């Protein structure tokens, strides 16, 4: 049976993981390859490297980071943050990424989704949607959540699928950073509207939140960053908890 995926996101700046990383057994807690190795041992299903600076100066560092992570762990690896063109996607994939995540660029130039899907296959193209709840639906935001894109998340997810996206990474801006749980209503609305997998993101704070998003939220995968950086909530503990709830996971 197809299992629900647990995905760890590493926010990377200048080749170092930022946000609190407190694994006790790591010598260099900020080293992405070392953190990825630890996640692999714990049973993570996928890794996302998010370039949070995405400036020209850091591109070379990002390529080194991707190469280092992809040489250490043999799991699906997604790279996001500042993928604006076919050349950006090519650089990430050539360095070892299996998938690229498009956000602002996909809304600005939706044909980029199709171009990349034709070249690398739909499985390599994730469209990331940052959205906030509104009375009449879910408003999509771009430019790291600073600008209203005047689109509805459900409608945009459907268009992204039609244009060739292989997965949707849906982040609730209302929940992101709150550790109060995923937005299950929004996730279910998007997940049931498309045939491609939906990765829920934003709000993970405890084990129960993951169970909720896989049941009420109809999510195919759940992504979190800081919760896995702390040794008190390990990936393996989470997976055993989910299994106990009857949710299929890879153990």
């Amino acid at each position, binding site marked *: 049976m*197809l299992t629900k*995926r647990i995905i760890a996101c590493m926010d990377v700046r200048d080749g170092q993981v930022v946000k609190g990383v407190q694994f006790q057994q790591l010598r260099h807690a900020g080293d992405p390859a070392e953190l990825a190795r630890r996640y692999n041992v714990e049973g993570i*299903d996928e890794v996302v490297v998010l370039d949070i600076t995405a400036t020209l100066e850091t591109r070379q560092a990002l390529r080194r980071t991707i190469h280092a992570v992809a040489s250490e762990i043999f799991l699906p690896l997604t790279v996001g943050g500042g993928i604006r063109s076919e050349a950006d996607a090519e650089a990430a*994939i050539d360095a070892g990424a299996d998938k690229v995540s498009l956000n602002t660029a996909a809304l600005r130039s939706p044909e980029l989704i199709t171009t990349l899907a034709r070249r690398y296959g739909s*499985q390599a193209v994730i469209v990331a949607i940052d959205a906030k709840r509104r009375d009449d639906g879910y408003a999509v935001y771009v430019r790291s959540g600073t600008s209203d894109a005047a689109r509805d998340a459900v409608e945009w997810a459907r268009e992204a699928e039609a244009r060739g996206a292989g997965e949707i990474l849906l982040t609730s801006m209302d929940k992101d950073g709150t550790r109060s749980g995923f937005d299950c209503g929004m996730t279910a609305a998007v997940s049931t509207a498309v045939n491609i997998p939906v990765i829920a993101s934003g709000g993970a704070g405890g084990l129960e939140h993951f169970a909720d998003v896989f049941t009420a939220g109809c999510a195919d995968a759940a992504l979190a960053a800081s919760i896995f950086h702390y040794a008190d909530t390990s990936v393996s503990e989470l997976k055993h908890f989910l299994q106990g709830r009857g949710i299929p996971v*890879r153990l």
Partner: protein
Amino acid sequence: MITLIDYGAGNLTSVRKALTHLGADYVVPESTDAVGRARGVIVPGVGNFAATERLVGPWTDAIRAAVDRGTPLLGICVGMQWLFEGSDEAPEVPGFGVMPGRVQRLRGDSARGLKVPHVGWNAIAKPRDSRLLAGIEPGAYVYFTHSFAAPVTTDCVGATTHVDPFAAVVERDQIFGVQFHPEKSGDAGLQILRNFLSLC
């Protein structure tokens, strides 16, 4: 020397990295000559079956000659589908045809939340003994990403179910195929690649 065939179906970086990690000596040849000297041949592939059209002609002839000499062959994902007669994804493109059967679109089941494409980690059942799956426990998880799959036939040594059962691993003589991505399936995937290399 292992020959990794690049016919333009997606990127080979992940397969290259896995082979390098396992210490395999491999080449990605420009011409078919290298296939004749290979100790093993790998046909990778992600994306659409239509890309295998580039294998029609000299590459197919070279690979067939190698197989006839007993050189081990491993098809990965679309490369495995290519071992069959053809695919409904691109009906005009012939497959290698060494395994009987036709690749068909998977069925989804929205009531159970089972989507197509089938993306993620799923378990492989082992209906019979397999050299490629030596040391792999029944029920081991591997990483899939595909919308089409080959039927369960007598060549199937590893079956997976997504609504319906399909062939996850096929094996006959020195010809092997995996629908999942061993280069992205953690330790289980690396073991499967190691098994193939040990047969080369």
